[in-house]
């Protein structure tokens, strides 16, 4: 119960994305009619002229007047796009030029005949196989499109219409296009009027379908079609009304909806069932699942059948169903089990195929469902007329060659049994000899397959009859009971052989499936362990190339959203000449293209979009060494799964990068904020003094004596200097943080640097005597002089600021292996309690902050500078009281 009612966040997200995409998309308006000739194109052109007169940019993309003069007149005066001349087998057809339309990008584009199939084999090759795909691309580009279509072109109604008219419509459009159109205008014409128009020659009829047209344009057909069209339009209105009224219900689509299951077999009724399912689901507003069960019998199906099965499942998905493939020994039991899991109460099946005596041996699925499994509603749909007629006789594929050696082996077994029986004959009853033969036949069944086993059974029976059953050495049978023996033996052998064959076949399928899963798992596991994108790409390409015997490449977009060929070391199996224009189309439209698809099918490779949760991330290009490989439905499905996994891995890597960048940005932001706060405080304080003192000096009314004025001026000078230091410190630190600092190194002697520092601080160290004790013969160091001087200045200032007047400061330097060690001591109160490393962090201050400036950056700058030179700086207590700051500089220079 639980699974069905759980809310589905993925669906919600899909809804939101759809809504957003809808806003950007062009709007599709369909002029809809029951049949050809009702006047759809005419009405469309009339409306276009009105719009044009109102000033809208209306362009005719493709309208074939087909010789109808009134229509031709309407086209005049409207801007027309030139046709695309497509040549095929010596004939030139005029087709719609999609690229010209995209370039022109009008507000409204008129494109007639939504269901038209493009001439894919022509030259130049159209991009899509179907016009509705062209129109989708136009809508994606934001162009509004007006088009026309008849009721019989709708996919889900295809067989219904075929049933009505007797002709099957080949060109169909997915219902989705119709249902999602922004506007559908029904052009209704009563059959009487339509027939009148036909007689008057006002309806276009292609020459070669004249006879079919006659059959088509009969009143009962037209009435039925008109009703269908009206009903479909009414459904749309109804759905819109429901959506409007029951908006809340639409926001919880997964609760409380009915659900049913459609079972399809790879026969000719499958498509009909799927289309029925769509109509049924729409009528009930229910969810529907299309299930195809792979029984062992179906494993022998030919490629045509397998293709059809995949096509049917695709059709189901395109109509809005969930498509599922199960496997199991019996279709009925698999269906029932699945139905129970999915909480389905109704199962829809097609007409039972096994009739007559065969239905006694093996019940058809429908019968089984009804008879054996309780608790389900079973709907059986009759096969319709006009359903596609496929050639009878399913081609038996699979390991096709006849294994003659097995038949010989079977014969050998029979001979062996006969030999054993002959040995036993004198001592045992005939019944025991029968057992020997039975054993032999069973062995043959288990080892050799059905055919040889059958042969063994028959030969055994013959041998038994001939050699041992009285009268001996003749095929006559004296006791009719032996017929029973023969029959049973044959039957048992065949049953065992069949069972074994089925098990083996299922094992094969399971093995194949397991192999596919293992391949997918191998790639997923390796992708999960890979961190950087270049490695991801290599792993992905390697696995795809190996699994599909092809060359592959991962194409990613650059900053301008254009795809680029990958750079980096090529992996065996990487594709070097991927067609970037095709790949760019795939990336822009988020749809696969190339080999095996409907778009640009002549390309050498298949291009799949890598879809992330938010957007398309890139394109996977795969060129198989054998084209046919990628056309197999299982391979295509597997490749899609691979692409999905790769997309996930790529997205994960990108998200990790983004998270890292965001973290760094946040840290920088945080640092900037702290800096601003601190600077703000530390600038205002000296500014206050400057402002006060200078305003006092400039105030006319104040009568200050010379001494006072001098003192005021001095404080202004001092505070200005403080501010200058602060700003320098801040700027220095910021330059270090952003890595802008380049060291300008040169050979310097430490005494020179110390001297410079002392000179610079001349005025400010008057209250603190400094002793300099540098060891003799100290090696010079290869450093940036101003920066290292700054370190000394900061350390000295620091000592002066944090110790009372009169405290002695001493500077010593010594040579220590390959380092120069400089120590600045003071005999003051010592370091504040706590971890000394803390002092070197930004904005740390040891003590009361109110009267010390510099924002606590001095030591942080020292650390940055010393670190940049490859040295270290530490703080600690000075033996004998006070604080000691030590820093080291490597003495090695550049290799010169």
């Amino acid at each position: 119960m639980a699974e069905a009612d759980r809310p589905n966040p993925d669906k919600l997200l899909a809804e939101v994305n759809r809504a957003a995409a809808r806003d950007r998309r062009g709007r599709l308006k369909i002029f809809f009619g029951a049949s050809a000739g009702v006047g759809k194109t005419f009405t469309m052109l009339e409306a276009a002229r009105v719009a044009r007169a109102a000033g809208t940019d209306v362009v005719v993309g493709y309208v074939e007047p087909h010789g109808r003069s009134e229509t031709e007149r309407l086209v005049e005066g409207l801007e027309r796009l030139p046709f695309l001349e497509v040549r095929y087998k010596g004939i030139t057809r005029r087709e719609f030029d999609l690229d010209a339309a995209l370039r022109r990008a009008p507000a409204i584009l008129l494109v007639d005949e939504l269901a038209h199939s493009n001439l894919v084999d022509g030259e130049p090759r159209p991009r899509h196989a179907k016009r509705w795909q062209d129109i989708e691309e136009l809508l994606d580009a934001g162009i509004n499109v007006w088009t026309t279509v008849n009721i019989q072109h709708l996919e889900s109604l295809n067989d219904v219409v075929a049933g009505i008219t007797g002709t099957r419509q080949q060109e169909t459009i997915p219902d989705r296009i119709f249902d999602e159109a922004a506007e559908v205008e029904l052009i209704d014409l009563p059959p009487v009027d339509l027939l009148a128009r036909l007689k008057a020659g006002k309806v276009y009829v292609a020459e070669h379908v004249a006879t079919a047209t006659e059959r088509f344009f009969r009143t009962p057909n037209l009435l039925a079609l008109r009703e269908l069209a009206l009903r479909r339009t009414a459904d749309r209105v109804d759905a819109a009304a429901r959506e409007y009224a029951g908006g809340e219900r639409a926001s919880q689509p997964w609760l409380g909806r009915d659900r049913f299951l459609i079972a399809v077999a790879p026969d000719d009724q499958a498509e009909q069932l799927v289309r029925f399912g769509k109509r049924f689901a729409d009528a009930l507003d229910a969810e529907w699942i299309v299930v195809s069960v792979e029984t062992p019998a179906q494993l022998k199906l030919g490629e045509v059948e397998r293709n059809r099965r995949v096509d049917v499942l695709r059709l189901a998905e395109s109509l809005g169903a969930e498509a599922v493939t199960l496997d199991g020994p019996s279709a009925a039991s698999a269906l029932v089990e699945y139905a129970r899991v999915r909480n389905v109460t109704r199962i829809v099946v097609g007409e039972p195929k096994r009739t007559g005596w065969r239905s006694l041996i093996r019940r058809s699925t429908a019968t089984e469902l009804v008879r054996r499994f309780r608790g389900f509603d079973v709907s059986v749909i009759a096969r319709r007329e006009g359903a596609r007629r496929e050639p009878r006789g399913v081609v038996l594929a699979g390991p096709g060659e006849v294994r003659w050696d097995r038949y010989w082996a079977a014969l050998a077994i029979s001979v062996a049994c006969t030999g054993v029986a002959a040995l036993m004959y004198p001592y045992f009853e005939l019944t025991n000899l029968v057992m020997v033969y039975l054993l032999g036949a069973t062995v043959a069944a288990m080892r050799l397959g059905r055919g040889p086993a059958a042969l063994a059974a028959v030969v055994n029976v013959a041998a038994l009859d001939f050699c041992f059953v009285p009268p001996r050495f003749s095929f006559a049978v004296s006791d009719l009971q032996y017929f029973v023996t023969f029959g049973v033996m044959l039957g048992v052998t065949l049953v065992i052989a069949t069972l074994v064959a089925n098990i083996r076949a299922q094992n094969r399928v399971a093995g194949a499936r397991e192999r596919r899963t293992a391949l997918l798992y191998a790639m997923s596991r390796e992708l999960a362990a890979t961190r950087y994108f270049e490695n991801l790409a290599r792993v992905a390409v390697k696995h795809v190339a190996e699994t599909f015997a092809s060359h592959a490449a991962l194409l990613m977009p650059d900053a301008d959203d254009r795809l680029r060929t990958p750079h980096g070391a090529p992996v065996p199996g990487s594709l070097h000449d991927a067609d970037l224009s095709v790949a760019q189309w795939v990336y822009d439209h988020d749809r696969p293209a190339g080999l095996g698809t409907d778009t640009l099918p002549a390309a050498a490779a298949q291009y799949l979009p890598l879809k992330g949760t938010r957007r398309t991330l890139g394109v996977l290009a795969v060129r198989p060494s054998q084209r046919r490989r990628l056309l197999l439905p299982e391979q295509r499905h597997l490749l899609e799964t691979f692409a999905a996994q790769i997309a996930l891995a790529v997205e994960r890597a990108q998200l990790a990068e983004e998270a890292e960048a965001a973290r760094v940005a946040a840290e920088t932001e945080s640092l900037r904020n702290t800096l601003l706060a601190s600077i703000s405080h530390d600038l205002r304080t000296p500014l206050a003094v400057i402002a006060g003192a200078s305003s006092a000096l400039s105030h006319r009314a104040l009568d200050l004596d010379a001494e006072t004025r001098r003192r005021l001026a001095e404080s202004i000078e001092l505070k200005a200097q403080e501010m200058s230091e602060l700003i320098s410190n801040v700027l220095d630190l910021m330059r270090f943080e952003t890595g802008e600092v380049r060291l300008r190194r040169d050979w310097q002697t430490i005494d020179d640097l110390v001297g410079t520092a002392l000179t610079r601080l001349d005025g400010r160290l008057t209250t603190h005597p400094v002793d300099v004790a540098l060891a003799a013969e100290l090696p010079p160091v290869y450093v940036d002089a101003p920066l290292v001087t700054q370190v000394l200045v900061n350390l000295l200032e620091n000592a002066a600021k944090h110790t009372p007047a009169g405290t002695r400061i001493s500077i010593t330097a010594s040579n220590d292996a390959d380092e120069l060690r400089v120590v600045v001591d003071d005999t003051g109160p010592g370091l504040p309690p706590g971890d000394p490393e803390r002092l070197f962090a930004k904005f740390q201050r040891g003590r009361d902050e109110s009267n010390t400036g510099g924002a606590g950056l001095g030591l942080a700058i020292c650390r940055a500078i010393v670190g940049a030179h490859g040295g270290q700086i530490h703080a600690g207590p000075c033996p004998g009281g006070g604080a000691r700051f030590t820093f080291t500089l490597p003495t090695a220079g550049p290799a010169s």
Partner: protein
Amino acid sequence: MTDAMFLVLVVEDDAGIRGVLHTLLESQHYRVAEAETAQRGILETRSHRPDLVIVDLGLPDRDGYSVVREIRQFSPVPILVLSARTMEADKIEALDAGADDYVTKPFSAAELLARVRATMRRSARTADRLPVLQFGAVSVDLTTRTALAGGNSLHLTPLEYRVIECLARSAGLIVTQEQLIREVWGPARLGDTRGLRAYVKMLRQKIEPDPKQPRYLITEAGIGYRLHVDDPPSAG
């Protein structure tokens, strides 16, 4: 020439700094002319022939280096450049281009005036005979090439002497390392700053009262050296 006739041209775009410089210079009885842009400054230098030009390196229309070079093409007038603290490379460039010294912003009045004086002195000196320099207890007579420390003869090696001489000729003004090396050792030894430092160290031992805290032979980190001399009593 009396001080009152000295004309100083200030090329600076910021009005506040121009004002301060104007006030300071006038207090020393110099005449002051102002220019806001490099273009204008070069024009004024040509037309009014000042005795000193103070150029801000951060002018909006041209960079200081090119201004100095252009002026040097037509005039040997002493040039002082104003620079922000971090533009070391620019300072060296300007000095190499021919500027005589630099002053970092923010500057103190004392420092600025000292440099101005030193620059004026130097230009005056080229016309006169080389004087005797006095710093602390040491006096150096450039004409006779003798040095005395506290009355006693000071022994300087020929190279040491040349270093002092070079620095003394631009007494009070900065001399870049390259300039010093070129003048003392010749252009072949350019880049050998180690040797230079050794000589400076030895010199300091001889002439400084406390070699560890030099007062006269000052290092300008990363740029060069400056010799501070006592001002002769006549300078304002």
